[in-house]
């Protein structure tokens, strides 16, 4: 076990430079430390000007996503010991515009989440007097996996299609759409399918599958996308039926 490890961290100060660069820091090595601990050590002891996002430090808030040695990871879940002997490269999440140091702009992501109408939509709302919507455990099971997303954006950092075509709606948004489409209380699957069938929608996906690989919550966005493609394809052929579409 080495006494210390080197971190090479992206610095970008737009007020004084036009391009990001890597700055190295020597950080004590502890076998139970994660990259986030190292970054906080840097900020507390070596360089207070380093900017980065973090919050819960236990893998549920989705704030601390960064590239660790080229892979998108939650820095609160990336042990230093996994990337020894170092130097460990810590860079901002790939394919997003960099605001400062390790902080990226999330606006595009937030916009895309909203685009798929991630809320229960009913043709007619049930009056309060009729009580709550009931859902069996089996009905919950249908969409539960897709509801586990913590909006950490690792899947977007892993998706080369998003990198090449920033208009692409992206894995998390599509998985979120499927979460609502499969919810027994929702009645807007057709509406969401139309949104996802637009030019920069789900058909841009070529099933690279990297999004599912990096997801810290096993949401399997790639699976959600392929399921929706099949639904979209079957739906397309419905015009052949004499009794029309639903």
């Amino acid at each position, binding site marked *: 076990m080495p006494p210390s490890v080197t971190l090479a961290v992206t610095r970008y100060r737009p007020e004084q430079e036009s391009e990001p660069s890597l700055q190295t820091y020597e950080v004590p090595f502890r076998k139970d430390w994660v990259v986030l601990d190292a970054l906080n050590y840097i900020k507390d002891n070596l360089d207070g000007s380093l900017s980065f996002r973090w919050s819960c430090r236990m893998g549920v808030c989705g704030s601390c996503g960064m590239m660790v040695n080229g892979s998108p990871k939650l820095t609160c879940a990336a042990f230093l010991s996994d990337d020894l002997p170092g130097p460990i490269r810590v860079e901002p999440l790939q394919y997003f515009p960099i605001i400062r140091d390790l902080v990226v702009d999330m606006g595009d992501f937030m916009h895309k989440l909203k685009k798929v109408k991630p809320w229960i939509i009913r043709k007619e709302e049930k009056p309060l007097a009729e009580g709550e919507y009931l859902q069996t455990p089996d009905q919950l099971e249908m969409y539960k996996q897709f509801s586990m997303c913590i909006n950490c954006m690792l899947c977007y950092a892993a998706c*080369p*299609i998003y990198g*090449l*075509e920033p208009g692409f709606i992206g894995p998390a948004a599509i998985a979120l759409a499927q979460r609502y489409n499969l919810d027994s209380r929702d009645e807007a699957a057709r509406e969401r399918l139309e949104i996802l*069938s637009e*030019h920069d929608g789900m*058909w841009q996906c*070529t099933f690279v599958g990297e999004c599912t690989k990096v997801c810290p919550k096993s949401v399997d966005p790639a699976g959600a996308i392929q399921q929706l*493609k099949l639904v*979209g*394809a079957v*739906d*397309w*052929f419905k015009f052949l039926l004499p009794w029309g579409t639903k």
Partner: protein
Amino acid sequence: MRPITPFLWTLFGAGGTIAALLFPVHLVLSGLAFPLGALEAPSYDFLYGLVRHPVTRLYLLVVITLPLFHWAHRFRYTLYDVLQLKHLYRLIAVLCYSAALLGSAVAAYTVWHIP
């Protein structure tokens, strides 16, 4: 005009499934084993008699045309993403599907006109 992408994806899926299930055996036999003499090749008369049957004709038509459309769809996206030729979006789409259509037309013509 409703987008045609779901239809093209279906062709891609059907072609990919046909290719996955049937191409290995055809390639091993007709592409390697028979020409190289590793296995005794079927006689010309046998093959010709086989091909004349309407079921075989349909089989061959399906086995040639659908994989061509599988190639067209997948190759189109490969050019967009790997070679970053998105600015030639329309041209690439037209070229790929036209090539597949051409191959399919030749296959259909051949299958129809077996004496």
